[in-house]
């Protein structure tokens, strides 16, 4: 089903949002995007994406709060979430994992190609 392949990217840094969007679109994925946590949550509950790439440092509602709200909803509780952030604080990692994030990637340590590989694996 096409909706299974939808990826939601929640990222407020426009250049990063654009490069992720371009790369994943080129790879054949359907992308929806949001630039703050609140919009991301609404989009997640409306679009039922198969995977969310979620930043932490977001306006309106931060990524951890969005994840917490997402998990409270029956639709959102099982969506696969990969944290994609430039924070590497142990507490944030622990919070994200406790809320059922499946991976925690520090953007600057990852090649774009490897992010795509991981996404492909997740959506197999």
């Amino acid at each position, binding site marked *: 089903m096409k909706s299974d392949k939808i990826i939601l990217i929640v990222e407020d*840094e426009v250049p*990063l949002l654009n*490069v992720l969007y*371009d790369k994943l679109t080129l790879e054949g994925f359907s992308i929806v995007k949001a630039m703050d946590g609140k919009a991301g949550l609404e989009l997640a509950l409306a679009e039922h994406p198969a995977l969310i790439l979620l930043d932490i440092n977001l306006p309106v509602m931060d990524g951890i709060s969005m994840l917490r709200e997402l998990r409270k909803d029956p639709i959102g509780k099982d969506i696969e979430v990969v944290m994609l952030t430039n*924070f590497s604080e142990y507490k944030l990692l622990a919070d994200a994992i406790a809320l059922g994030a499946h991976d925690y990637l520090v953007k600057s*340590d990852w090649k774009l190609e490897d992010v795509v590989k991981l996404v492909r694996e997740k959506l197999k």
Partner: protein
Amino acid sequence: MEGKVAMSSTNPLSSKQNNSWSDLPNIDYEPRFHVTVLAKTKITKNTVILSLERPVGFIFTPGQYIWLVLPELTKYFGTIDRKAYSIATERNDKQIDIIFQLTDDNFIKKLNILKSGDSVDIIGPMGSAFIVSDNDCVMIAEKASIAPFLSILRSGASQGCQLFIYDDKNNVISYFQEQIKRLSKKFNYELHFSQAKPQKSDFNCITKKLCNLPIFIAGSQDFVNIVTDILVKSGVPLTKLHYEENYPQTAQTKKLEKRFSDYFSHKNKGQTIAFSGISDIFMQSVQQLSNHVILTDSNGRILFANQAVTDITGYTFDEIRGKTPRIWGGLMPSDGYALLWNHLKKGGSAKKVIVNRRRDGKLYTVVATITPIPGQGIFVATEENISTFREVDKAKTEFVSIASHQLRTPLSVIKWYVEMLLSGDVGAVSEKQTEYLQEIYTSSEHMVELVNSLLDVSRLELGTLKPNRESVSTIDIARDVIKEQTINLDKKKIKLSFTFDTKIPSIYADPKLVRMVMQNLLSNAIKYTPDKGNIHMDYSIYKKESILFKISDNGYGIPRQQQGQIFTKFFRADNIRTKITEGTGLGLYIIKMIIDNYGGKVWFESKENKGTTFYMSIPVKIATNKEREMGLRI
């Protein structure tokens, strides 16, 4: 110090010609140098001159001293590894001479087996108390204690000064006599040699003049006592007398030392002897403390509070007398207090971090230590206010976290866009463009590495993350790390061999930290070894209680004069800065911090263009109290 010395120095520990302490020196490193022994000369049966290489940038003022460090003493014998020695050479000499007397002391024995070509560490120059004036002064020395004066005389400072030298056997002095006579002629020093003990009559000719001159005295304790006694009785004020290692003992000092030593030796045996005024002395000490001290009865009712209690809590002693510390405390979970009191009432003592509230409502954090006094029904409670440290640490942690996030974001943008261009996803790029883009990519990766290392350093320094402690096989970690580096080894055609004792036990540590250490050591060895070089890694058991890791390469090596700085933050040796542009200068600093925290040691041997061997010993049983909370990159 009233001396005037026309010298400038780059060393922050050197004497400052500033009479005020309003500007504290900004000392953020230890001026430590690894130097070669140039010569050892035995000048008498018991006296040796050790000549050391003078490191580049070592600027001193005559009268200053160095710490001579023999690290093996702590490593192998657990004894103190350093002693202070006056510099005997003049300020333009290419070497540093020190003079020492042979004794049974372990340090001296070790010092005496050093030979030309061996190396030692020195720290310094230090000290300003013994820097003499350029005006008239008097120097009084005994035997080998002449060392600091030799430096002054040889440098031609304090011309026209008077020099009194005592040597009952005339051994040490006879060695220097001709030279001192020559110097005296040249610089107009007035000389007095004597083989007898100092006598009042020695100083008669100058006693009147002496009253106004600074007098510098160096020698054994007895010598210093005798000379001081003579001079003071001749009317020389104590303020004119300056000493080096030994300061005089007066009759009153000796009496006091005996009273204290008798009192405490009896006290330790459970006896009490009379010491009138002792309670006043200790009361004054307690009142002067900046830490909060209270005495309570066994129900916690306050019997005494020092001045710091008022300063910290805002309550006067009268306001809290008879009350309990609940007046500022009681903010912690109640079951904790119950446990604490139960423990104290059973005679145990306790140390806890707790939060209190001041009279004005402001919260503060303290380390509280409470100890019952056996049989007295009294508790002593002290509190150290650590609020400021915690606030500073919190601010630093937040700053580092935000700063690294802010640095990583543009770096991610650069990396990912360059990657898009290089992959050809958005159109073909020429060969030259690919080459340029690759350079941008490599530099951004280098920058990412730098940000990550800085974050590691800051977390290790702040201790912001709790380390995981589990049984770790260092051999398995080494194998993994070698596997990770295979690409880099192949790229440079470097041959790597790995040997280990099969009986190496596991250690109880954080595998991520151990991995970080191994990764840094191996990647350094690869980075700083030219193509087709060799690296050898070895694990062995060391002194039964530690494991020793050794990694040798036949690479560029570390220049001798820079070896003392190798573990400092951001240091990169001159010989590799142009050859290898990558490298942050943080790897070895991180390694040392981790290994020190595990109670281990890291050291090295290196010869430029021959290679380097790093050694690292880690105790198998890492003492929990030695381990700080350490953090690392996730």
